[in-house]
């Protein structure tokens, strides 16, 4: 598909872009970032912050690059004296009433105002006048509004109006008295995407209550990951400090979630930080007390019992928060042990919540990231929408019982009591693992490399953001070692290898490698129904 291209010069460098591209976007393509506030690629462009001013040859005054489209032969200077004069002036105006309370502002260190003023602003302020005060306003939901810090870019108003399409925010009054507010006390209750306004706010005016005064932006490590909380598979960054997730932010992916994520997924991270983790393999065997063991001992023990179980059939329980690699290794092990059923339970919400302004994005009914991965590998969903039930056959099975990840919260402590071999792999100990012969500690998705498959059939990579506790290891590594012992073939030494093995076994995953997936993901080789059950 050919588009008419326009060639222009930006800061002495030639660039060719499709006709209709704005100067600010054209500049991005050569790595030039023009400072701006009100512009956002996912929202309308009101050109009102006046910060993105650049010098355009032939124009008598500096032009806003967010709405000025490229023209053939145009000469643009983003750092000429004129452009810098324009932006320096605008930045001065921003600081006239700004409280400069960086020492107590959560945005500090991740603040566009700090960055731009530091780079291009005046060294000293010239205002001796008292500053305007608006105070702090609770907008409801997870959002606090510090009016004094607001730069009136109206990104928040436009996000709610254009993207969530719930017109809850507005600008009230006029001129220097104007400020953002809701309809009196109505607030943001009952909206499902308002967390995004904290992301788009370029300063610390809109803050998350959940994150308030928790950690400094510069102390946080950002790790690219995939939201585990529903099957949409929003691309995210996990922000961690002290080996704990402090908050989740969306990561841009125009094929999946654009720049957004829902409030449910964003705030549902405490489970990743749960303490009281399994830290060592436990040899439990019946009702005697567990003893901790090393991996070699534990795995040898499992193999011995497995070989001793002869032709016993296998019933396994997986969970949809496990990665493709983990699930693949489980399937391979079940296969090697003579075959058997693998089931999983998965919570489902009553309804989807679609983001009207970007309707391929929704908080899906399936409240786990990898339901589709499990389905593609032939695993069967059982139980109710509350993720309980469906395990009667497994609970009473007298062959080999394998459980990966599922907390079995609704099952009795007698679970697996008749099994010839019952291995429980999980992050936490469980009452229903009382009869497990071996309890093996595994990692959460946040502590390992791997992939999830979302409801579009898109395989997406995530990276480890935290160190696993104690001796916990990724499930694909543990299960892969067991398979290797049973087959005599070498075990996968990396998640990439584990994924490649999956591709060899399951055609849907064939021909895709980690290199192709990179940070954007790729679709599986088969159509995935979006409707679900």
């Amino acid at each position, binding site marked *: 598909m050919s588009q008419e291209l326009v060639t222009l010069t930006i800061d002495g460098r030639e660039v060719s872009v499709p006709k209709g591209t704005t100067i600010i976007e054209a500049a991005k393509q050569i790595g030039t970032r023009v400072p701006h506030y009100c512009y956002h690629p996912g929202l309308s462009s*009101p*050109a*009102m*912050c*006046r*910060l993105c*001013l650049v010098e355009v040859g032939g124009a*008598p*005054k*500096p032009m*806003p690059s967010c*709405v000025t489209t490229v023209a053939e032969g145009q000469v643009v200077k983003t750092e000429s004296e004129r452009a810098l004069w*324009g932006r320096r*002036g*605008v930045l*001065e*105006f*921003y600081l*006239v*009433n700004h409280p400069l309370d960086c020492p107590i502002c959560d945005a500090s260190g991740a603040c566009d105002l700090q960055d731009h003023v530091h780079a291009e602003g005046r060294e000293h302020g*010239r*205002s*001796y*006048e*008292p500053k*305007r005060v608006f105070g702090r306003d609770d907008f409801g939901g997870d959002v606090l509004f510090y009016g004094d810090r607001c*730069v*009136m870019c109206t990104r928040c108003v436009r996000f709610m109006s254009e993207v969530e399409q719930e017109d809850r925010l507005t*600008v009230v*009054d*006029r*001129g*220097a*008295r*104007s400020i953002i507010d809701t309809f009196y006390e109505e607030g943001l209750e009952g909206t499902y995407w308002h967390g995004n306004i904290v992301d788009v706010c370029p300063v610390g005016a809109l803050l998350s209550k959940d994150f308030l005064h928790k950690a400094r932006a510069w102390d946080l490590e950002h790790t690219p990951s995939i939201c585990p909380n529903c099957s949409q598979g929003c691309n995210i960054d996990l922000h961690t400090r002290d080996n704990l997730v402090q908050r989740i932010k969306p990561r841009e992916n125009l094929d999946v979630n654009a720049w957004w994520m829902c409030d449910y997924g964003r705030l549902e991270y405490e489970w990743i930080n749960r303490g009281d983790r399994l830290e060592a393999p436990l040899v439990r065997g019946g009702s005697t007390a567990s003893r901790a063991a090393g991996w070699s001992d534990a795995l040898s023990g499992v193999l011995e019992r497995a070989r001793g179980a002869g032709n016993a059939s296998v019933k396994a329980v997986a969970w949809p928060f496990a990665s493709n690699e983990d699930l693949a290794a489980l399937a391979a092990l079940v296969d090697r042990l003579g075959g058997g059923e693998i089931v999983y339970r998965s919570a489902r919400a009553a309804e989807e919540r679609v983001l009207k302004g970007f309707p391929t994005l929704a908080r899906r009914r399936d409240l786990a990231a990898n339901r589709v991965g499990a389905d593609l590998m032939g695993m069967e969903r059982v139980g109710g929408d509350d993720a309980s039930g469906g395990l009667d056959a497994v609970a009473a099975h007298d062959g080999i019982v394998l459980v990966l990840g599922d907390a079995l919260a609704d099952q009795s402590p007698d679970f697996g009591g008749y099994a010839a071999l019952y291995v429980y792999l999980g992050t936490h100990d469980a009452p229903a693992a009382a009869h497990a012969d071996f309890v093996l500690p595994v990692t959460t998705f946040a502590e390992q490399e791997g992939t999830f498959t979302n409801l579009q059939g898109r395989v997406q990579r995530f990276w480890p953001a935290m160190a696993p506790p104690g001796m916990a290891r990724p499930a694909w590594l543990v299960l892969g070692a067991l398979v290797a012992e049973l087959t005599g073939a070498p075990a996968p030494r990396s998640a990439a290898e584990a994924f490649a093995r999956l591709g060899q076994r399951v055609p849907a995953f064939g021909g895709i490698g980690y290199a192709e997936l990179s940070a954007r993901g790729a679709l599986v080789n088969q159509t995935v129904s979006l409707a679900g059950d």
Partner: protein
Amino acid sequence: MAYPYVSEREVRVISRYFGDPAARRIDTYVDRGGYGALRKAFGMGPDEVTDLVKASGLRGRGGAGFPTGVKWSFMPKEVRRPHYLLCNADESEPGTFKDRELMRWDPHQLVEGCLIAAYAIRASHVYIYCRGEFFEANQVLARAVEGAYEKGYAGKDILGSGNDIEVTVHQGAGAYICGEETGMMSSLEGRRGLPWVKPPFPAAAGAFGMPSTINNVETLSAVPHILANGSDWYRRWGTELSPGTKLFCVSGHVNKPGNYELPLGFPLAELIDDVCGGVRDGNALKAVIPGGSSVPIINAEEARACRLDYEGCVEVGTMLGCASVIVMDETTDMVKQVRRMVDFYAHESCGQCTPCREGSAWTAQIMRRIEDGDGSEEDLDTLMHMTQQMVGTTICVLSDSVAAPVQSSILKFRHDYLALMRRRETAGVA
């Protein structure tokens, strides 16, 4: 009749019936030849009408002075989507009071002008956006529009011509920024009156996204006369580049303030001394703002040299704007008046663009502090430099309008500012 102030030097084209209550009646208007121009226009093609107005050289009387016929010619010649004519009756520029008088004395002239303009640009609907405070004028205009509908001059199949043109009187709600053409369209659409970025221009995407033209009340009031009498007739008055007559609103320290319709190019000195009976109480002239508060202030010397047309004002370093002549005599406290003007802009700024939102309020704060005797020369430097950052950096020119009085008064009346600072020093305030 004796409208309060008349001068024999006037050329009363559009203000002829100021002070005549009978002019409000549609019967009187028709008896005096009203709506004849509309009939004539219908007998010409729309583009012919536009060419006639272009030939007359009529320039927008709302302040920008853009040639009206040229503006009309920007509209699409084919009607693929509804075209709109918007009459800007949101007169709010300090010093300006001509549109209100036009609306309340001779409303039919305006309505006829709107209908002719609508025909020329192939518009199906005229919105007259009236300032909300003009209750009396709006109701006079409302009766005029009702009369036009009754007599078949507006609505469907006007005068059997096959042309359908609706007229709606829309009332504003108190915002100076809604006198800016895109602010007005925004307000008409039921939004906050925030000006829009141009391009796109109104003729391409205006009110409701449709091709639109915005004209001032005075501009449209002249249209029937140009249609009736021709472009050469209109060019009898004024200058080559600024033809025709203009309503000059004179206010402030003159003996006879009021509206005077004079040929463009009229010398400002004669306007003050002859037409308006001179500066009050025989005081000396100190300063004049010739075009409403948004144009630079000129001192007495510049005023004496000033010719009141678009080019003549530029020559003395100011602009004609809407020709609202504010006269200030020697008793004027210049700092106080500039402070009051800046307060006005700070109050009326829509708040979109940062330089205007923050800059207008900051300028007002500094001006108040100087007026209270707590200013310094450093403040004057800050004002000059900082207001320059407000020029050319915003979506509309309200921001530039803050700079005009501030910079011109500091440059030409610096002693007024310094006097306040010395007063403070002599008062012994630390």
